[in-house]
């Protein structure tokens, strides 16, 4: 799932300076799971912003809402009535949600309250770790379910570099070498021969975004 962190309150306060009535819109999908932009976080941020503005002698009125998924236009549509009442929207969804809201309410400013960080899994309660970079051509079947694009500092596709020492990456910080993990995993599942499979260079363009935003189009699903 998409992981995000809240921007520092003072940074948010800075871009909300010109506004006296806003809509604080959360998202009950990915960012609620990582406790950054769900219903509860809407309440906490709203409370903090109101107190800060009251203290500064510039009260702010904040309408609160939390969409089921802010990346879906039909759910964002439900915010319309509230959006019409305010000067701006502060979205604490991921960057996708912020852009959906900005596109749907094109006549008012929409600000991001989060820094969208990565796609990852829950490592332990309160700790999330990057696992996927949406490269567009998954190689996890060759690499034993460990992604070299997201987990190797150099994104090497065919084996470790010389910086792999005792299972650790040379960048330090106790980062495990992804290729050591791939080797160990392939050995465990009896697929060490996969290490000899050559993963071709990425077709950056189809598999990445140097040709603009990537699009998935499914004719069978269109109305």
């Amino acid at each position, binding site marked *: 799932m998409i992981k995000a962190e809240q921007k520092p*309150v*003072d940074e948010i*306060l800075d871009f909300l300076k010109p506004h006296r009535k806003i809509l604080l819109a959360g998202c009950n999908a990915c960012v609620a799971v990582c406790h950054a932009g769900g219903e509860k976080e809407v*309440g906490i941020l709203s*409370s*903090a912003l*109101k107190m800060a503005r009251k*203290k500064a002698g510039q009260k702010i009125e904040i309408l609160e809402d939390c969409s089921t998924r802010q990346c879906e236009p039909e759910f964002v549509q439900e915010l319309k009535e509230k959006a019409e009442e305010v000067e701006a929207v502060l979205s604490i969804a991921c960057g996708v949600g912020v852009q959906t809201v900005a596109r749907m309410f094109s006549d008012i400013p929409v600000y991001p309250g989060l820094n969208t960080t990565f796609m990852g899994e829950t490592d332990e309660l309160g700790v999330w770790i990057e696992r996927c970079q949406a490269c567009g051509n998954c190689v996890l079947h060759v690499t034993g379910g460990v992604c070299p694009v997201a987990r190797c500092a150099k994104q090497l596709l065919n084996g470790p570099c010389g910086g792999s020492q005792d299972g650790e990456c040379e960048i330090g910080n106790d980062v495990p070498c992804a290729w050591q993990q791939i080797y160990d995993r392939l050995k465990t599942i009896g697929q060490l021969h996969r290490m000899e499979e050559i993963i071709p260079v990425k077709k950056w363009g189809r598999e990445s975004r140097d040709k603009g935003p990537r699009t998935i189009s499914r004719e069978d699903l269109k109305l």
Partner: protein
Amino acid sequence: MVESFSPRIVAFCCDKSGYVAADMVGKLRLSLPESLDIVRVPCAGRIDALHLLQALEKGADGVLIFACHEENCQSLTGNIRAKARMGYLHGIMERIGLEKERLDLCNLATNNGAKFAETVLQKFDELKKLGPSPVE
């Protein structure tokens, strides 16, 4: 600061320690400030950051958490979680310019009625010196 200022304190009390200790204050014939509001919770771990922050937003000059001693929580880590949430809120309070002394935690046991009263009175005096909440 106005001399008659009587700080409003909201105390979130764990049912297994703080609330029982608060009850004992009466039995010990100790007095507590009239402006103290007690909120009974099943465990300090039930107290969310949102509850604490909203208490401050809605008029409390100070907020206290009364939780069990560490390693003595019947729900195992409720008191530790409450402490972590307080730390998280201290960060927010610092950024919005609200004194972090306005939010505090006290670990105690059921028979610590005197400690409960002492903690509340100490916080009462501290808040009196600090003055009314700037966000009231």
